[in-house]
């Protein structure tokens, strides 16, 4: 993953718990250095190790840590660094979700090693929406759950996650989020 992800994780811990806690996380993770550059591609294991160390250090489940990270990613990192893009991608949560693949396509032309997830949005009746998440990576469904919560907060939209349904897939991860928009 790109350094911008690792940086965001570090910023979340530092902002919420201070630099001392981050140093403990870093030590626990075994990652030797936290001088991440946003556009540099790092081994996925670094991100996973850091996330796991965060969970261990906070004494919470990894899924809780990833969920919190998803919220932080939308509310802080993306909003701070890519606000123009966020604005261009949509003025409400649904339009944003529909543009999300388009956004990732554009990122792919710059981040050549980028392996973005794919989102398929299907609007049902009574404000029910199904969001199918597909990724080459495993274990990031809680992070996506956090992203959805963060987006709902950003667009000031009430959202209830009705069901998170893992689906069979040959490789990577595939999850169906069933949500109800307010």
């Amino acid at each position, binding site marked *: 993953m790109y*350094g*911008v992800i690792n940086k965001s994780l570090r910023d979340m811990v530092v902002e919420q718990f201070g630099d001392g806690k981050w140093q403990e996380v870093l030590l626990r993770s075994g990652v030797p250095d936290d001088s991440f550059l946003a556009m540099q591609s790092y081994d996925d294991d670094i991100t996973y190790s850091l996330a796991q160390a965060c969970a261990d250090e906070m004494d919470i489940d990894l899924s809780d840590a990833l969920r919190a990270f998803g919220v932080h990613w939308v509310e802080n990192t993306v909003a701070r*660094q*890519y606000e*123009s*893009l966020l604005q*261009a991608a949509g003025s409400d949560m649904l339009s944003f979700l529909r543009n999300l693949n388009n956004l990732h396509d554009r*990122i792919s*032309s*710059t981040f050549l090693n980028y392996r973005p997830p794919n989102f398929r949005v299907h609007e049902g009746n009574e404000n029910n929406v199904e969001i199918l998440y597909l990724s080459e990576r495993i274990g990031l469904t809680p992070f996506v759950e956090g992203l959805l919560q963060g987006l709902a907060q950003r667009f000031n939209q009430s959202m209830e996650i009705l069901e998170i349904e893992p689906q069979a897939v040959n490789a990577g991860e595939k999850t169906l989020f069933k949500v109800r928009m307010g």
Partner: protein
Amino acid sequence: MLGKKRSSKCVWVRGWFFPVIKLDQFWDELQGLFTVVGQIDSEGVLVRASPLLAEKCPIDGAGPIKFFEHFKFKRPTPFDGSLVSARGAIGELFLGFSEDLGFAIRGQVMDYTEMGLDGLCFVGVPWLWWIEGNTASSTLTMSDFPVHDVQMDQLFFMSTQQSMVEDLQALNVQLKSAKQDVERANDARQKYFHHVSHEMRTPLNGVISALSLMSDFKLEGKLLEYSELASKSADRLLEVVNFTLETASLESHVSQAESSTFRLDDLIDECLMLARPRALEKGLELGRSGERGFMKNYRGRLKLLRQVLGNLLSNAVKFSHSGAITLGASMLDSNDSQGDMIEFFVSDQGPGIPADAIEKLFEPFATGLSAATEHMQGTGLGLSIVERFVEALGGEVIVESSVGEGTIFCLKIPLSFAPKDAVLESTRVAIPQQIDEFSGAVLLVDDNQFKRQLNGKVLESMGCNVAIADSGEKAVALIESNPKAVDLVIMTVEMSGLSGFDAAQRILDIPGAENIPMFGLTAHCGSSERLKAEHAGMTGVLGEPLLVDDLRNAFLPHLPSNSTVSETGPTQHLVDKRRADAGTGSEPLSNHGAMVDREDPNMSENDKPLAFGDDNMAQDVVAFDREPIDRLVREVGIVVLDTLVDKFLGESTDRWESLRKAMADEEKNIIIREAHTLGSACLTFGLAAAGGSFRKVEASALAGGVLPVADQLPAISEQLGLGIRELKHLLSEQRLK
């Protein structure tokens, strides 16, 4: 729909062939590719617009919109807003903006006259960067940009680049902070080492001095054995302490981006200068080989290079028992605009290094790598440092060695040329004037280490090959082993063990040594000393401190002269002045030849035994005479002089204590010995008042009269203190020069 392939009926638009289709279908095709599309009639009026353009420029609004006037176009240039001008710029990039609308467009115009319509068509997209930069908030969405347009990609890219810049700025701050931390730590370490150095060296010097004094007593058996062991161990410990502390401080050089401008010839001469005293002591030849006269100045890490060459020379001297050591350099390759590849080499004729030991040579703490050198202890860090520093200099080091024949270290080091206006780094040592007036082997015999070093250096500066013996016994043994190896002997007459006079008599009895000229060296050039010298078979006596001009007079009849140097050397006027002041001079004493003796036939006041209680003791003598220091700087250089003065200061405290105790205990022999040594040293280094007082103490004790009493010591102590202060001040001045 668009393509280069010609169909049966096409319209040509700036190099592209469009198949002729219905106008509406064509319009739809354009809107599929671009989000800002406008049809402009022959009057320049916008008559049809895509939804995004129509939102900004309503066609059915207040009045007709003159498209090329409505927007201000930054490109193309020149562009006057007319339809003619627009038609002339078909195929060029159009960048237009409207501050009123808060909207900007980028694209190009197309001519579709052949489709039966007048006017032009504008196709393009919103000009994102202008809008981002000139409007408070953009209402554009991703759907306002066709997928092939890269402006959104650029937006993401620029956002990320901004993040990268911030990352790098943050890293830069961290690096600066880390660098400052390292510098602070280094500084603290330097202070610590300085402190430790002082704390360790001072008591260690005390131990060494005390052991040296013990050796003056006639120790025998186990006591002698233990004393020698203690002395060797203490010397060794001091060497290790000095080396370790110096090494630790040198470590910081590697990380420092030091860059100095220097002359290669100066650097080589300086390194040889620094190694010479030790080589001299061991009777080794030390010289320069390779090329000379490097024309260009170089710029680089002078401290590292100096240390590398110094370490290699120091090792060569340490492990060699005989033969020659050379340091040289030659140019391997030159890049006229950049610099030269220089090969340095340090060779010796020492015991050599076995092949299997060479691979471990540069490992830290590698010592005793061969049977021949295993008894020579060292810290084993010298060559490790050499390798590290050579690496830091961007060079390489190669060793070739043959057991029993010697070793040569070759360093290939790239050196950059210095800019023409660069200021040369002055060498650390004032290179003393090399007179090279005489040739021949001179044996210098003295039991005082710093006098050996000092006088050896003076002799060498005159061109002599100098051999050293630290006792009369060793001098006799050395000449016995090879009488032909010595052309002349200079021997201190007052020595513990075999005195100079006794040693001279024994030397005369050695077959083949009968005609070796021998000069006694004494602070008392009185008639009694002259007589003793004559009785001992000596050629003459030389006064202390040893002066070049006295030596020249002494050498002329006995040593081969390279006499291109005027007999009146550069220091002659000073000598003349001294002699005029002292009312003394040198003159032949007998038929032995050029006997050198500064004594007036009538003994001078200073040489007369003096009752210690004289009121005028030393009162008329200046506290400090800078002339000896000026002379010594010229003759031996400031670095050697610094070393000697350090040794003097280190020893003087202990000798002073010894003298004080001897005076309290009325130990006449010790009083004579200590006062003599202190007096000689003080006069050598210009401490005239203190030296004079010590002379009088010695003379008084020698005369056998009333022994000096401890009450006199405070006055001498004050003279000594004042003199030392002046000496240090003068040395500081000399270093600055």
